[in-house]
């Protein structure tokens, strides 16, 4: 069974980002970039499926600037078999990514597509759902457990009320939550081997997808700094202030 995994190159989770002075976006020039942590979990899950003999080939795909190659090489070092880069300088919004994934899925015909539930840069949490809808596949989002069989996959989902297990007919889209697994440290020999694994490049135009953004970013600003609090003398004063000033009681 072929598994397709989508990975996004995002600003590293350790980097404290700042809004650009002109409010047009987040300043990520020269910031450390890494694979989206949820996507790392997606790659790890695919590799585990392969190690368990349930998946036969792992194809990893990324979209964006040329440097996404580094992210793909990391995925290859983790254990993916080959990589596809949809190279573009354009801003990619979830719908565009989902359309591109649909075209890739049409070519590659995987039985399972695994993605992170969201990317830590825009936190959109839309791509997996949109891709499933466009493909007409079943979807299991926020997965904390994936149990793959020949024709179906059982996905345990982290939902507000607890855990929900759904049985999906393949092909299916699964998006990962934090508790699904703990990604491995890459092995040194695999870093070397990853250099030699195939990495194909294509473009949105080649795939016939118009990636023009549908949404316009008006302004990006940092949240207002928290102002200092005040001390109250006793519970009565607290209640009074909650009533009269905060107006929450």
């Amino acid at each position, binding site marked *: 069974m072929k598994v397709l995994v989508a990975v996004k190159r995002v600003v590293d989770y*350790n980097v404290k980002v700042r809004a650009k002075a002109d409010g047009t976006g987040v300043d990520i*020039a*020269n910031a*450390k970039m890494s694979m989206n942590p949820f996507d790392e979990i997606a790659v790890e899950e695919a590799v585990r499926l392969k190690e368990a003999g349930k998946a036969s080939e792992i194809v990893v795909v990324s979209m964006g600037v040329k440097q996404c190659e*580094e992210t793909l*090489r*990391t995925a290859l*070092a983790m254990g993916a078999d080959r990589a596809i880069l949809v190279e573009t300088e354009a801003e990619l919004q979830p719908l565009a990514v989902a359309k591109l994934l649909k075209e890739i899925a049409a070519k590659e015909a995987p039985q399972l597509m695994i993605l992170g539930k969201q990317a830590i840069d825009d936190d959109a949490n839309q791509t997996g759902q949109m891709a499933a809808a466009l493909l007409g596949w079943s979807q299991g989002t926020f997965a904390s457990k994936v149990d793959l069989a020949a024709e179906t996959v059982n996905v345990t989902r982290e939902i507000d009320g607890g855990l929900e297990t759904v049985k999906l007919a393949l092909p299916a889209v699964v998006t990962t939550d934090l508790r699904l697994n703990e990604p491995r*440290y*890459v*092995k*040194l*020999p*695999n*870093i*070397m081997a*990853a*250099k030699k694994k195939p990495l194909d490049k294509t473009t949105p135009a080649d795939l016939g997808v118009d990636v023009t953004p549908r949404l316009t970013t008006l302004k990006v600003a940092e949240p207002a700094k928290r102002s200092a609090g005040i001390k109250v003398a006793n519970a009565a004063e607290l209640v009074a202030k909650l009533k009269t000033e905060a107006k929450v009681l």
Partner: protein
Amino acid sequence: MIYNAPVKEIRFALNELAELPAICSLPGYEDCSVDLVDAILEEAAKFAEGVLAPINKQGDQGAKWHSDFSVSSAPGFKDAWLQYVEAGWPGLRAPADFGGQGMPALVALAAEEMWCSANLSFSLAPLLTLGAVEAINHHASEELKAVYLPKMSSGEWTGTMNLTEPQAGSDLAQVRSKAVPVGDGSYKVSGQKIFITWGEHDMADNIVHLVLARLPDAPAGVKGISLFIVPKFLVNEDGSLGARNDVRCVSLEHKLGIHGSPTAVMSFGDEGGAIGYLVGEANKGLAYMFTMMNHARLGVGVEGMAVSERAYQKAVEYARDRVQSRAVGSPDASGVAIIQHPDVRRMLMTIRAGVEAQRALACVAAAALDRASRHPVASEAASNQALVNFLIPIVKGWNTEEANILTSLAVQVHGGMGFIEETGVAQYYRDARITAIYEGTTGIHGLDLIGRKTFSEGGATARALLEEAKLTAGKLAAAGFASFAANLEAAVADAGRCVDFILETFKEQPQLAAAGSVPFLKLMGIVLGGWQMGRAALIAKEKQGEDGADTDFYTAKLATCRFYGEHYLPQVSGLATAVVDGAGSVLEMPEHLF
């Protein structure tokens, strides 16, 4: 205790100063590329930050010796070692013929810096193992290599160096351990060895000891010492582990620092003789050990710099956080973070600039080591070997002497909290102390530098390096770095006077030359570090103007270089005066008045 591997800094030292792309083009390193090294650095950083750094503090609790002569490694270390092995890191610079990746010394050194910063005690296990791998690979028979190297390169087995005995420290001619031929090609080894780093532990299935011992008919002195492989467990024909050998750890030392690294007293042959196998030819053991010394000494120089880096990170974190006193000269009485106080900034800049210069010099030395071993043109290989030989005592001696000063400054930044163990910075100060002692004390390296490395070759390499530094000073002047250029040029001239002094005195009045050998080593470190910082400034200035340049990085780099030029380079003049004019007072006072 968070550690953030300074990957950008390391990359700059590798790519710009040590010319990694040229190293990757040497024969045998074709698989290496800047992209690949970037990926290796990223993953090494993750491993150092995520696995090794978190157990450094608990490592300070130390390994435990048991009365059955076994040793339990510090909490978390065994698991970390297994992960280290699983991830394949032991093979980074191990020979490709035996399962390693055969990466250049330059690349290995970059990863080693991260291991050392994250957890110095842990890092010694792979360092010693690789030293043993190198010695076996260069000198042992093919049969011995086939038995030991694959498992040592993979990290399934670790290695040790058994040189020191109670009466034989810096003077290895005093080694008394014995080896007697059994008749089947093996030997029975007996004697006591002390200060054996990772001599006994529970992290790996077998421990391969390299032991210096004397054969029955061996001549006295250094020419009668042979090198033996003595495994903890004998190895069967099929490669499986056999009987426990007659070697045991009879105690662990109680030390000032690196508590996570068990320092063993090893007893060989208490039950009649430990089975050992001769490495190479008889009576050449010491020479064999020296072939791997360069790498080991470079490694210890990296240790010193790496601990200083870690201490710097801790000090910066504290200085940003700790609010105390109004800003100097400010009418506003409210307290500010101490990083705003000029003297705290001076201390932080001192550590930062020292670390960057030391890293640069270590990387340049490692690149020379790679060129010396792989350059296809014999004359190039030879000149690089001379360069390595000259730089090794400096990188080892200067980086580690500085580590004592810089980690102490990091404690100072913390004020009273720095003196409290829970704060954590005290561990770096204690851990750093050993680096100026083992693999040859600074005094030993000072003598090596003035004798074999300066006098014996008529000062050729010293003068060539100073000439290079002078050229850099000229470029700095032309690029508008007037004060740096002037200070570097003055320092080069002072260092040149010292070289003259050593050449004049070494033969006829060696005591005078020796009296100033360590100040000479330090000032050469400062001058050559200044040469590298000067190169760094030139590169930073050029790159700063490029499209999409990392302006924060180059701004910091230029400020740090400037600080180095104004605070480190002027020290050379004082040290030079001590070297040239100060020997008399070192020797004057009668011994009984001490």
